[in-house]
């Protein structure tokens, strides 16, 4: 017993280190060593409260700019709505042309997001009780923002465009050649567009929009503009750098796209693949 005490005293530094490090790491891994520990809950509560307060303060500070953007967006939407209305103004006819998108939009507020991590995510204040499902597209006022990953009753998390796991099928607006959008770290305003064949006409400043192929994003949503153009080593494809139109740092309000035909398209494609 005495030997044990002497040993503990002798190595008090190392033992304190191990104890504190285990506590810290278990917090990181959300392993709660004392499930009903009051202090642990208090700390988690404080953490959440600080997040909430700063988020609210941030919303107030950005109110003016946010308002302007909303007004602009409203104008744009009204203009689009007018295109769908009958000239007589009698009844609103659903137009089922090739461009018509059989989707609606769920407005949501961004309550948490990152832009400077290796894998970036967003958290939105809409969940399955509002009709949100996994794999729905998320669009900001200036362009695409991500794809819904996990959904709870009132919230959902979104794989940001700024995440190597994010993929979207996009196309050059001018020539309709399509490729794939990727982000592999680095600047949060730049992304890569790959798989555009090298015979496609492309110039810096060209607009890139979603292709509508994945049944996630509707066709024609703004993605960004071409910045620099390189050839891949084999020379048969372009490796294009894009300037993204949506500033992910300024994202406060977004739309979740509910595509009514996504499941049907998926099932049909799965059937064909078999």
């Amino acid at each position, binding site marked *: 017993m005495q030997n044990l005490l002497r040993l503990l005293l002798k190595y*008090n530094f190392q033992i304190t280190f191990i104890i*504190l*490090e285990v506590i810290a790491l278990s917090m990181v891994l959300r392993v709660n060593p004392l499930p009903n520990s009051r202090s642990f809950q208090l700390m988690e509560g404080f953490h959440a409260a600080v997040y909430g307060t700063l988020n609210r303060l941030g919303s107030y500070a950005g109110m003016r700019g946010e308002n302007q953007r909303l007004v602009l967006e409203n104008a744009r939407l009204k203009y689009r709505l007018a295109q769908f209305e009958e000239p007589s103004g009698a009844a609103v006819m659903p137009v089922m042309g090739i461009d018509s998108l059989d989707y609606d939009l769920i407005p949501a507020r961004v309550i948490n997001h990152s*832009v400077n*991590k290796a894998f970036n*995510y967003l958290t939105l204040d809409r969940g399955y009780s509002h009709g949100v499902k996994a794999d729905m597209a998320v669009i900001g006022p200036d362009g695409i923002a991500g794809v819904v990953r996990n959904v709870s009753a009132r919230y959902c998390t979104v794989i940001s465009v700024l995440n190597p796991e994010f993929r979207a099928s996009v196309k050059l607006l001018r020539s309709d050649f399509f490729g794939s959008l990727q982000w592999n770290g680095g600047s949060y305003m730049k992304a890569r567009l790959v798989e555009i064949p090298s015979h496609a006409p492309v110039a810096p400043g060209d607009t890139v929009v979603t292709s509508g192929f994945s049944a996630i994003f509707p066709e024609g949503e703004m993605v960004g503009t071409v910045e620099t153009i390189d050839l891949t080593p084999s020379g048969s494809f372009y490796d294009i750098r894009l300037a993204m139109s949506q500033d992910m740092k300024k994202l406060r309000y977004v739309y979740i796209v509910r595509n009514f035909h996504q499941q049907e398209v998926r099932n049909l494609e799965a059937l064909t693949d078999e």
Partner: protein
Amino acid sequence: MNRELIRYILRFVLVVLVQVLVLNNLQFSGYINPYVYVWFILVLPFDTPGWLVLILAFFLGLGIDLFPQGISGPGSSLGIHAAATVFLAFMRPYVLNWIGSREERDSRYIPDAVHLGWLLFAGYVMIMAGMHHFMLFTIEEFSFRHLLRVLFRTLLSTFFTGILILIWEAIRPSGPK
């Protein structure tokens, strides 16, 4: 003694506030995040008991953890800074042993620029900040798959943390007597 205690308490609060209110909101690029708060642990007096340094480090890290880092995602969680800073405190005596001269060690001796000299202090800061940042980014990414990126972030951020600490040492009113 009491004065010293109050000085260190104020200093603790100061570094947490500077870190969470100013430095966490700076964004030079996605790769550079200076964490100057480690300075508090670096310049604790030599005769501070090891267990006390560890406990101070734990609460300092936790203090930083409690505040969101600028714009933060679900990836940031409680305990990351605490773990990295406790590790830093654990390595402190070994690094000091390695670089410091033993003779000068008495209760007045503080491992800052005045006592170590600028060159040695700069080396001390860079080694310690490097270890802390490496731990921090490794825990944050939580896989060795991105080892290269972790190393890259560590190098860049360590450089900036080091420069900021050295500037702070140069301009701050002279340390405790």
